[in-house]
C-alpha cells in the first residue's frame, strides 16, 4: 500500500498512493472544483461511488469518465473540465495539456 505512483492532473505530475482513484488524484493535485455546472457553478465529487456524475473528467483522452470509479495507473493523464474550460476561454485548449 505504501508504494506511490505518478499520474498527471492537468499536465502537472502528482504522486498518489498505489490503489488511489483518479478522483483522489485530482484532489491531491489541489483541485476541488472538478467541473462547472451548466450555469457555471463549481462542482466536485458528491457520492464517491459512481452515482452522481459530479466527479467526471477526461482520463487518457476519454471524456466523461467517473473518476471515483477508476484506479490510477502510472502515467495516467487526467484532465478536469475546469482546466479545459479555462484553456478554451483563452482560445488555446492545447495549453491545458488536455488535448493531444
Amino acid at each position, binding site marked *: 500500500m505504501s508504494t506511490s505512483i505518478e499520474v498527471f492532473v492537468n499536465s502537472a505530475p502528482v504522486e*498518489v*498512493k498505489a*490503489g*488511489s*482513484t483518479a*478522483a*483522489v488524484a485530482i*484532489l*491531491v493535485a489541489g483541485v*476541488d*472544483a*472538478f467541473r462547472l*455546472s*451548466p*450555469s457555471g*457553478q*463549481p*462542482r*466536485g*465529487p*458528491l*457520492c*464517491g*461511488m*459512481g*452515482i*452522481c*456524475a*459530479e466527479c*467526471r473528467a477526461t482520463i487518457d483522452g*476519454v471524456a*466523461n469518465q467517473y473518476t*471515483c*470509479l*477508476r*484506479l490510477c495507473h502510472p502515467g495516467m493523464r487526467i484532465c478536469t473540465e475546469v482546466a479545459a474550460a479555462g484553456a478554451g476561454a483563452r482560445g488555446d485548449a492545447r495549453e491545458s495539456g488536455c488535448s493531444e
Partner: protein
Amino acid sequence: MSDLHPSREIVVVGAGPAGLQAALAAHDAGARVTLVDASPEAGGQIWRGGHPPSRIAARLLGRLRDSPVQFLRGCTIVDAPKPGQLLAMHDGNPLWLSYHRLVLATGARERFLPFPGWTLPNVLGVGGIQALAKGGLDLAGKRVVVAGSGPLLLSVAASLPLYGAQVPVIAEQASLSHLVRFALGLRYLPGKIPEALQLAWRLQPLRFQAATYPVRAHGDMRLTAVTLRSADREWTVDCDYLACAFGFVPNLELAELLGCTVREGFVVVDNWQQTTAPDVYCAGEPTGIGGAEKAMAEGAVAGLAAALLPEDANSPVSRNLHSQAAPHLARRARCHHFAQVLERSFPLRPELRDLPLPETTVCRCEDVPLIHLEGCSSWRDAKLQRRLGMGHCQGRVCGAATEFLLGWPMQSVRPPLSPVPVRLLAAAALAKADDSNPHPQTRPGQ
C-alpha cells in the same frame, strides 16, 4: 454438490455483501456464476478498501479470488434487451451477458437533500467521504463536519480519524428519543455492528449533537464553513469538508427496467428472494434498508435459490435447498427485525423541507432551482418542462430529494440506465439486428 442443474448460468449484479454471498452460494450449489460490479474492486461500498478489512469481508473476498466465479469489475449494466440477457458497458465496450437466472444485488445510494451551498466542492456524502478516504485521500489535519441522519454518521465519524481528520461535530437530525429507541433495537442485530456503533458513540460523545442539521454551507469556489441549527440555536463551524447525507435509498433502476414489482420504494420478493419478474432474484438494500448482515443473509438465500429452485414452480423444493438455506433464513429473520427498528428510528424531520431557498439548486446536473419546480405537478411534468432529472445522473440524486420535498415519486426508468457513448449503443443495435449472432461476447476471454 448440485441437485439438478449443473450448468445453470447465473449472473449476479453488484459485488457488495449481498452479491458476494449470492455468487459464492450459487457457485457452491453448482451453478456457473458471473459477478459484475461498476467499481474497480469487489466488496461494495461498505467493504471497499477496508482499513483493515473486516474478517468476514476478507474471508468472502478471498473465497471469490480462489473460486472460478467470473468477476467483471468496471462493468455497468445499461439495458435488458430481452429476457435472459443484459447489455453492459465493460471497459468502454459493449458486453452481452446471458443468464438463466439473475440476482440483483445493486445496493443503495445516499439520500442527499438540498440546502443553500450543498453544491459547493467539498460538500459530499457521508459514504462519499469514506469512499474517497478509502480511495487514498489523505485527510491529515482536515476538519470534517459529519451531518445528516442514520447509523453511518457514527461509524464514518469514528473512522475518519484513522485517515488523519478531525471531526469537530456530528450533527444527527433525528431526536434523542428516536436515537435511544434505535440503541435499544441494536440488541436484535447479529454481528459486530452494534459494538462498532457503541464504540463510535463512546469515542465521540461530546461532539455528537442530536436534533441538529445543516442549514447552509458557506464558501465561494469551495466550502469554508457550515451553519448548523438545533431547535432555535444556530452556529457556524469552520471546516474543510462537510460529509452530509440523510440515510439511504435503494438502487432500483435495473429492477424497475426488468419489470420487478416495487412497493413503498422497495423490490417485492418472496421467501426465496424471487422478484415478480421471472428468473430475477433480489437481495440486500433494494428489498429494504438493513445493512450488510441482512444483505449477506438474503444474498445467500438468493444464490442458493437461483441455483437450486426447479424451473417448474409447482415442482417440490429439494431437501438440499431447504437444509442449506435454513441458517441463512433464520439469520435473515433476525435482520429484518433490525431493519424495522432502523426504519422507525431515523424519521426525517419536516423542517428539512424548508431548507432550500427558491434559488437553491435541486437538480445538480441541469441546475434546476427549487423555484422552477413551482407549478409542476409531478416528476414527469417537471422533467418535461424544467429538465429536472434529465442530466448525467438521470435523477439518481434529485429523485430522492424531490420525493421528500414535494412528494413526487420518480417515474419511467428507461434504457440506457447510465450514460454511455453513442458508439456503444450503435454496436448494441447492430448486434441486436444480427439474429444469427445473438450473443456476440457473452463471456469475454473464454
